[in-house]
């Protein structure tokens, strides 16, 4: 209507040209692209930039943003905020006076910002902070702590905190990497390190292997400052530079790698010109496994520079007790029913001054082919066959010993008749052994051989009933078992002893078809073994709670094959064995075994262990082990909280036979919310009249790895069920 004209008549309105776009909105903004905004005021010249003022909130997928004022550009999808910027993404909370965020990716930059990583309780502040939107937070001049502090900005009021030139926290790989870092504990800087990485959760191998301090009786003061280098996702290298006051400087290295087909670990410790011995001391351990389809291969090589290496350098009795180091390489091809394996095995034997050991034969090589038990046609019979050829080389230190090659073939046929009420398994096996020897004693053949058959009948009958066991409804079974074994006597005294020994007598051995392990001897036998087992199964979960077994092997005729030098001839029936094992109640576990000499009724062997573990951080283990004329030791260990801050750890392993402390460990732990101090004293026997005493101090900063050597790991091996303070705190 042009103004001022007469009013238009009521014509029909002009038809608008219908054009797709003009129809307005057909498709809404997809959820994962939509940016939801709310503010007090919004203005903008056009689609280039939109200004938002007054407690602005922006949300995109899992990212939430709030600030006093934000300028958002849909073109660059970037929001620049001024005034109380807060960014929240899953368990991460970032705050800063200002900063900018790319909404689509979550990448953000901020200045003098604070951060909180709720899932790992990590918090702190930084002059500049960058977040990659995925998982990695990069901080400049940060301080970081895991302890309780009034607010994230006050990280330096934590019991411990880290300050650094730069710190990167990668939440995906759960690792923190700091450069130019300083660890401050109770306001005292205790560690300055140009670079270190630390785990942000317990699962990861600790990147930060903190320095350890300790004194060791045969070496003096020891300080180690380890470096963990995470070379690649599937490779890492750890260096252990160590100063030993009584000996010198040692460098330990440990490299690990894991690829789809290969896995391995290399450890090499080297200490040039040890002050105590004047020689270089070193230890190498190489472990490699290869697997591809049916092919398997591997190397397990261990070597030390001298016989006393472990006595001088090991911090645990287990390591100190190594006397024969294996040096093996193998290649095998495995299929469902058969496998072939070739290996060479050599040894390094450590002879200690008044404790000489007989060195084992090296097997250069040993080849084995094995057909696993396979059904014959569809008869109810199975056959297994194995062939082995071994070249035994005598150790250089025993040139007089016999050596040579041995070929063994074994075949076994058995017919398992298994009904639901009983099982009956007759078996026939044959072992043919022949040798080609050098250095045999005069009068003994160079190529002794033997072919020895064995017959066995094994039958068990099953009874059961419903009953209750310490208040729990159970199914109790009663399984009497009869096992007859017949092997004719064949004089094998002309055969050498390469890899054969008398096996322990035990409940599992009285049903074995050969009382010797290794293939140089097949024990003659005309024996009847009777045994009864009763098991208690939980009625609901059918889990085996407890079992009691008793059994005896009766020698119907005395066995005549004797392993010269290892066995005295006996005519007695086998001993009587009994074992009781299982969980008596929720937190009490019992394992008791006894072996009585059938004739004299004397106690040949026995051990009993009782462990009581009512809750995490509370554990008590009592153990007594006895073997006539060899072992008579009791072993008490435990961990018990003394107060909510203190807890005691200990182990005592004393041998009455030698009136000597085999091993003693005593530890005291004090813990606060985010740190714990552990002092561990330890003494263990390393050789006749020689022991190692050591005292270790360890400070553990939760979430930062254990500062100090690994007494915690040592304890977990020494005190079964031991739980480090931090874990027990976390779960309370």
């Amino acid at each position: 209507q042009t103004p001022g004209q007469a009013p238009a008549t009521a014509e029909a309105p002009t038809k608008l040209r219908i054009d797709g776009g003009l129809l307005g909105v057909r498709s809404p903004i997809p959820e994962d692209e939509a940016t939801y905004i709310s503010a007090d005021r919004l203005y903008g010249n056009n689609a280039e930039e939109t200004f938002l003022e007054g407690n602005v909130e922006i949300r995109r997928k899992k990212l939430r943003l709030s600030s006093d004022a934000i300028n958002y550009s849909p073109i660059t999808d970037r929001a620049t905020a001024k005034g109380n910027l807060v960014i929240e993404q899953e368990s991460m909370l970032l705050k800063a006076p200002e900063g900018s965020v790319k909404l689509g990716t979550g990448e953000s930059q901020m200045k003098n910002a604070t951060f909180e990583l709720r899932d790992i309780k990590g918090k702190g502040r930084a002059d500049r902070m960058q977040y990659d939107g995925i998982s990695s937070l990069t901080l400049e001049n940060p301080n970081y702590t895991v302890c309780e502090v009034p607010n994230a900005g006050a990280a330096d009021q934590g019991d411990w905190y880290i300050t650094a030139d730069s710190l990167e926290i990668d939440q995906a790989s759960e690792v923190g990497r700091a450069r130019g870092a300083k660890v401050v504990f109770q306001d005292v800087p205790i560690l300055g390190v140009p670079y270190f990485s630390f785990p942000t959760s317990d699962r990861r191998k600790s990147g930060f292997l903190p320095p350890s301090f300790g004194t060791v009786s045969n070496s003096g003061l020891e300080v180690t400052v380890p470096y963990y280098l995470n070379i690649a996702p599937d490779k890492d290298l750890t260096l252990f530079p160590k100063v030993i006051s009584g000996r010198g400087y040692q460098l330990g290295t440990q490299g690990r790698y894991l690829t789809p087909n290969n896995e391995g670990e290399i450890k090499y410790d080297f200490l040039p010109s040890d002050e105590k011995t004047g020689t270089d001391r070193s230890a190498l351990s190489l472990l490699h496994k290869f697997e591809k389809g049916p092919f398997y291969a591997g190397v397990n090589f261990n070597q030390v520079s001298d016989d006393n290496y472990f006595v001088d350098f090991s911090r645990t009795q287990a390591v100190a007790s190594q006397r024969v180091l294996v040096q093996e390489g193998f290649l095998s091809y495995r299929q469902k029913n058969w496998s072939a394996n070739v290996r060479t095995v050599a040894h390094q034997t450590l002879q200690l001054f008044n404790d000489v050991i007989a060195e084992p034969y090296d097997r250069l090589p040993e080849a084995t082919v094995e057909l696993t038990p396979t059904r014959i046609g569809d008869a109810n019979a199975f056959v297994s066959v194995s062939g082995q050829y071994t070249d035994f080389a005598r150790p250089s230190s025993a040139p007089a010993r016999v050596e040579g090659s041995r070929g063994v073939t074994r075949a076994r046929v058995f017919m398992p008749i298994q009904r639901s009420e009983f099982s009956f398994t007759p078996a026939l096996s044959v072992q043919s052994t022949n040798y080609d020897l050098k250095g045999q004693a005069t009068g003994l053949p160079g190529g002794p051989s033997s072919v020895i058959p064995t017959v066995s009948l094994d039958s068990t009958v099953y009874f059961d009933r419903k009953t209750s066991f310490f208040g729990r409804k159970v199914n109790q079974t009663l399984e009497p078992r009869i096992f007859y074994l017949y092997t004719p006597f064949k004089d094998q005294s002309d055969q050498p002893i390469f890899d054969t020994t008398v096996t322990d007598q035990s409940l599992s051995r009285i049903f074995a078809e050969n009382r010797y392990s290794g293939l140089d001897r097949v024990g003659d036998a005309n024996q009847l073994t009777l045994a009864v087992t009763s098991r208690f199964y939980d009625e609901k979960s059918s889990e085996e709670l407890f079992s009691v077994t008793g059994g005896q092997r009766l020698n119907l005729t005395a066995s005549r094959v004797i392993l010269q030098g290892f066995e005295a001839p006996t005519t007695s029936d086998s001993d009587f064995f009994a074992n009781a094992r299982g969980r008596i109640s929720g937190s009490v576990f019992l394992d008791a075994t006894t072996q009585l000499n059938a004739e004299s009724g004397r106690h040949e062997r026995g051990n009993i262990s009782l462990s009581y573990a009512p809750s995490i951080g509370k554990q008590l283990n009592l153990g007594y082990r006895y073997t006539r004329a060899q072992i008579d030791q009791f072993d008490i260990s435990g961990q018990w909280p003394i107060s909510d801050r203190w807890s005691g750890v200990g182990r005592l392993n004393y041998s009455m036979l030698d009136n000597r402390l085999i091993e003693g460990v005593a530890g005291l732990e004090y813990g606060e919310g985010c740190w714990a101090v552990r002092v561990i004293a330890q003494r263990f026997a390393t050789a006749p009249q020689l022991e190692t005493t050591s005292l270790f101090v360890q400070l553990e900063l939760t979430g930062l790895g254990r500062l100090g050597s690994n007494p915690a790991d040592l304890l977990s091996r020494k005190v079964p069920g031991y739980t480090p303070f931090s874990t027990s705190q976390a779960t309370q």
Partner: protein
Amino acid sequence: GLEADRLQATTIDANQMTYNEKSNVTVFTGNVLLTRGSLVIRGEKLTLTETADGNQLAKVEGSPARFKQQRDSQVKSDVLLISGTGEMIEFDGNKSVVTLTGKASIEKSANGQLTESISGSKITYEQNTEFLNVVGAPNSAGKTRVQAVIKPKTQGQAQ
């Protein structure tokens, strides 16, 4: 709005129209439709006043009143639209400014794809510069808030 819109004449179409000589105010009622080039405003009642300097102010009321306009775009084939609703829509002919009040909300779309939707208590839109100014609408908490949903320009779209 489109460059050409400014030069177009404003036409108004309605069922009834009354003109008041003294106050120089014309009131249109019933299916009111104001068009100027690609700008379209609809409502139940339109009050047109002419100021001394010859400027025309149109106030459109409706439940709600609606407006729509095509926006400039460098890519000829792109159809960029802006549309809005409000209990009252005012249009200043000379300044080419549209002001929506009363549960005001606007939507921008590109080729039918919604790119922005904003609501507030008062929205002013300058057609020539496409400058948008939104003031908060009272929300349940009594605070006046602007709510907006914006789609980021994918690389292709952003010129």
